[in-house]
């Protein structure tokens, strides 16, 4: 536990808010247990990544401005339990507002405040063992934007390996994209489906009970695929696994 309580702003992200509120709650519970005060600025929507990635930069800017305004100009860390949204703000907000005298500097500032959830626990709080207990075998899926965008990989692995009762197995070619890719999953549906099948096979080949990750968008796609093929495997966000492990 840190000596002084810290305050963070939580950017929930649209998918967690709407589709997986329990995961967002799990993240908050874990942070609270670590003595972190969580603020949730109200009126959050979406970071704008879907539009930006599809080539609609004007549309993305509308949402990005809203997000920048919402999180203000403090120096509080902005915590996100979704690697790709974090990467969007950290890397591409400055690109979106290049040359904009007002939002350019503010985008830069916000980019510097973004922290991914497991990164915050491990690198900022210096905690890897939360005291969780969870009996299961899991594979960790390193989502591309968490891994390559945020350079977050050892942090979730450290958190998982500290969970008592948890066995972490390794899948083949672990750093391979699951095929989600936002609009890609719909625009290039058959390619996305083939990439998904390759990953689901890789996960299932390990015999693990669950696939765990840090990015809910990939996990939504993965769990949707696991359910469609009636797999006995489940997908779970790391915050949820840790929070449940703390209840045990």
């Amino acid at each position, binding site marked *: 536990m840190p000596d002084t309580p810290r305050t963070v702003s939580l950017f*929930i992200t*649209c998918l*967690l*808010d*709407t*589709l*997986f*509120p329990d995961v*967002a*709650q799990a993240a908050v519970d874990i942070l609270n247990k670590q003595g972190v005060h969580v603020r*949730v600025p*109200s009126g*959050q929507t*979406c970071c*704008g990544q*879907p*539009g*930006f*990635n*599809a*080539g*609609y*930069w004007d*549309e993305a800017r*509308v*949402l990005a401005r*809203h997000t920048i305004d919402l999180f203000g100009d403090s120096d509080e860390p902005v915590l996100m339990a979704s690697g790709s949204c974090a990467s969007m703000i950290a890397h*591409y907000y400055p*690109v979106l507002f290049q040359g904009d005298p007002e939002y350019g500097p503010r985008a830069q500032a916000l980019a510097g405040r973004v922290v991914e959830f497991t990164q915050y626990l491990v690198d900022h709080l210096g905690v890897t063992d939360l005291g969780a207990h969870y009996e299961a075998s899991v594979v960790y899926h390193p989502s*591309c*934007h968490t891994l*390559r*965008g945020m350079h977050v990989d050892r942090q979730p692995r450290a958190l998982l390996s500290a969970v008592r009762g948890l066995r972490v197995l390794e899948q083949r*070619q672990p*750093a*391979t*994209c699951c095929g*989600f*890719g*936002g*609009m*890609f*999953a*719909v*625009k*290039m*549906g*058959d*390619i*996305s*489906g*083939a*990439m*998904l099948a*390759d990953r689901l096979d890789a996960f299932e080949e390990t015999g693990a009970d669950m696939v765990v990750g840090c990015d809910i968008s990939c996990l*939504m796609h993965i*769990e*949707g695929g696991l*359910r*469609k093929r009636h797999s006995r495997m489940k997908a779970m966000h790391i915050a949820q696994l840790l929070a449940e492990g703390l209840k045990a």
Partner: protein
Amino acid sequence: MSLQTSQQPFHARVSKAFENAERVAAVRRATVRFYDQRLTALRSLPDAEATRDLARAIRAHTIANLDKYLTQFEAAVQALGGQVHWARDAAEARQIVLDIAQKTGAKRIAKSKSMISEEIGLNKALEGAGLEVIETDLGEFIAQLAGEHPSHIIVPVLHLTRQEVGKVFASKLGVPYTDVISELNSIAREKLREVYLSADMGISGCNFAVAETGTICLATNEGNGRMITSLPRVHVALMGLERIVPTLSDLSVMLQLLARSATGQKLTVYTSLITGPRRANEPHGPEELHIVIVDNGRTRALAGEMAEILYCIRCGACLNVCPVYRNIGGHAYGSVYPGPVGSVISPILGGIPAFAELPHASTLCGACQDVCPVRIDFPTLLLRLRRETVRQGRSPVWVTLGMKAYAFMAGSPGRFQLAERLGALFTRLTGGGWFKGQLPGPLSAWTRYRFFPPFNRKTFQARWKERQSNG
């Protein structure tokens, strides 16, 4: 337009690729193998990451000073007695080569592997003028016999199994069928030896051109490059104008990375440095050396925010690692240049309309940038091209409508909450839980492969607000 290898729509090409499960498996096997070999090969460098940084710096410097180094290269080649030709586009490049062939009375042309010759559609032009053109790189030789385009920039017939190669040889060369690789090699060798000895012109590509010495460097594995650049009396080398490196020591940096990144070799079996045509006191070598420097759209990239793609050294590592390439193979891209580099360079060289889907055929996973020896930021380049496809009205109407609606709904918290409530209504009307049915229209692409998660009746923000007012 010879950069374009297919007139079929992108989705039709992808469907066709998936129809052939054997080829999909062959591509996956080969690309995973090359990827693993690359990792091992890079470990043999004392500091691979520092070498990559240096290579990137060399490429960035060269591309930023391309005019200077090209001029220096031209002067060096001329001083050696070679001739330099400048081609603004594919048509000019074809005409230059054709003119050289006619002036020198060449009838039989032996080629080593050259992607730029594919890009400018050279073979067809030469054959159309009544010349005989034979590919001597084994992979290109097979592709030529099979009447197929290369599907990979380093391994032209990566998609073919040895059984398929056996069938091609049997039907086109009139030899008994075999799928034993050593026997297939012998058949090709016997056929190609005769070509080397009888060709009167050799056409090669150029991996690097050294400005300070006027040297061109060819990295090959079969020795054919050496044969066709030394036995025929005329040698024509084709190069994109970005192939330059300033000095021989810069070349050595690039060579440390090229083969390691491409095939996982420390060096290719043959690394040929060709500096000028045969000199008076030399017994071997061509009487004439012509170097054709091709622009064909490259200076357009040079001027804008896409210049970084010109750093590419054509190692193919980004193809091997790309999960999209691994699944659809090279032909589905419909361009001479497939994979991540192809998705960037094709629309730049050939225009957005011909290749509008390619920048979108990526999850932006960034694996390509990870393996690129010169660390090209592919995701950002792809994102810029996507913006350009939207600007040019090449995005499907339903995507535009969807994106406008989404930006409108998420543009204000009130509208966003309304959208969330509509989602929750959808979930309630469809029985709650994960949606297992088929969604209509373009959204059916989602439900074909996955269920859709339920919208929660109470969003996290609504719960939070409640708790704050209660607490």
